[in-house]
């Protein structure tokens, strides 16, 4: 247990050391997204079920920030350890595979949560300035569920990708060719109601759709997909990604680059 807590502490303190990069960057990017999409374009884009477009956008951005940062935290930690060579230490010290996996996944969740929260607060300010009211949380438990599921899931995905990656390029290729499209097409900016039935069907194959809509349901009470469906798919995703992380830890390389 001490070993696990130590690794978790190290993961958290690692991103705390680069807090500016961790918090300021998403602060600026969420500010820009809200300004461009929420305020400027938002006037002409319909929301969903009586919710304004700005309000619709905020939970999407929160989930996007959460997922990205959870993924970033575990994957960049592992990849930079591969680069400096201290990844070998992880194999040599008496930490079990589960301790390693959950320390990294929770580290990702914590960072994702902090950045998601910053994004939420930026969104609140925009909402207040635009609409004149603060954004409430309609279903706090659902919100919590999807925050935890999303953070862990992407922390686990980061472990999987980082252990298989053979270079920094592999990692950034995964981010830009897999993660980014899935995020953008997962209903962050638009409700799939606006798509043709064919593209709606395609969108429903994207697991990120369920996490994003789950969080949106928690915050606003609206969603493109059913709550139970979202919860189930998120949970199954969590299990699958855990198993993938586990396999990568066993089979992947601890060799330094």
């Amino acid at each position, binding site marked *: *247990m*001490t*070993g696990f*807590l*130590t*690794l978790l*502490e*190290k993961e958290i*303190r*690692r991103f705390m*050391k680069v807090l500016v990069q961790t918090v300021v960057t998403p602060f600026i990017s969420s500010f820009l997204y809200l300004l461009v999409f929420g305020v400027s374009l938002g006037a002409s884009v319909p929301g969903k079920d009586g919710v304004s477009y700005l309000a619709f956008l905020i939970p999407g951005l929160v989930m996007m920030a959460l997922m990205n940062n959870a993924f970033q935290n575990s994957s960049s930690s592992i990849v*930079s*350890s591969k680069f*400096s*060579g*201290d990844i*070998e*230490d992880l*194999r*040599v*010290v*008496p*930490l*079990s595979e589960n301790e390693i996996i959950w320390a990294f996944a929770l580290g990702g969740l914590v960072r994702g949560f902090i950045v998601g929260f910053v994004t939420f607060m930026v969104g609140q300010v925009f909402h207040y300035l635009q609409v004149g009211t603060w954004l409430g949380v309609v279903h706090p438990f659902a919100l919590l569920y999807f925050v935890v599921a999303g953070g862990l899931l992407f922390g686990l995905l980061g472990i999987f990708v980082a252990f298989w990656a053979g270079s920094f390029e592999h990692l950034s290729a995964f981010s830009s060719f897999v993660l980014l499209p899935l995020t953008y097409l997962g209903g962050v900016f638009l409700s799939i109601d606006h798509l043709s039935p064919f593209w709606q069907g395609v969108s429903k194959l994207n697991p990120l759709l369920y996490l994003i809509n789950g969080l949106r349901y928690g915050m606003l009470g609206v969603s493109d997909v059913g709550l139970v469906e979202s919860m189930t798919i998120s949970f199954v995703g969590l299990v699958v990604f855990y198993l993938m992380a586990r396999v990568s830890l066993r089979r992947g390389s*601890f*060799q*330094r680059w």
Partner: protein
Amino acid sequence: MTGHPIPLQIQNLRKSYGSFQAVNDLSFVVNPGEVFGLLGPNGAGKTTTISIITTLEKRTSGEVKVFGHDVTAESRQAKCKFGVVHQEVINSGFFDLEELLQFQSGYYGIRNNTKRIHELLGRLGLFEHRHKKVKQLSGGMKRRLMIAKALVHSPRLLLLDEPTAGVDLTLRENLWTFVQELRSEGIAVLLTTHYLEEAELLCDRVGILNHGKLEACGPTSKIINQFAQKKIIVETRSAGRKEIMAKTDEVLGDILVASGIDPKDLLDVHVEEGRLEDAFRKLISAPMEAKP
């Protein structure tokens, strides 16, 4: 249950990369309070052997036990008992020395290990650098940091892969003293090195590895005896300078008598003792017996 007495036991260990045999039927033990030197040319399989002990590499077959615990089947128990210093220096960038050593201790289940950490930093001459980042250290300091890191949990077996490579003479001598201190505390040390005078000085026993095979293994003096010769340079009135090669344990008088030298004829005698280096050279360069 009492602790298993043998720190390291390797039996019929094999490791192949595809069709290439990096380690070939290797067997040896390291006893408590013993410094064992694993010697061999580049690519002999030393690092591979150490990597198998530390579970960084998977063995192809054979047995590796640390204090009786199989390194893969009972890896947790085995890992708690050894510390390792890798051949390559590690460069982690975020934390200072003291933080790194605290984390390392935590991985072994030890919280607030400050006393031990300060003691190690002191003994390795790093105490005043404890708030520096790794990248601010010189190469030799990094190596000492790695040694401190390997010892935070007071292991009873220490694996040192070329700890003195690229280290200056003073520091090397300090490290020798340090290893001797560890030995006197009863810690078993497995050491690889390319400096054979170092191995001769430090190692109670050595194993000489070539192409993954153990060519010879035993007490250092015995290996020297068996494979190296001493050189006796005699100067006589009648024949001038002459070199006589002899086994290291032969008595000088007997050698002179056997060579038919009359003590009255003798001007000067100079003896060059057999060196591990000679034994090493002989073992490594010996034509390999018909191998398939």
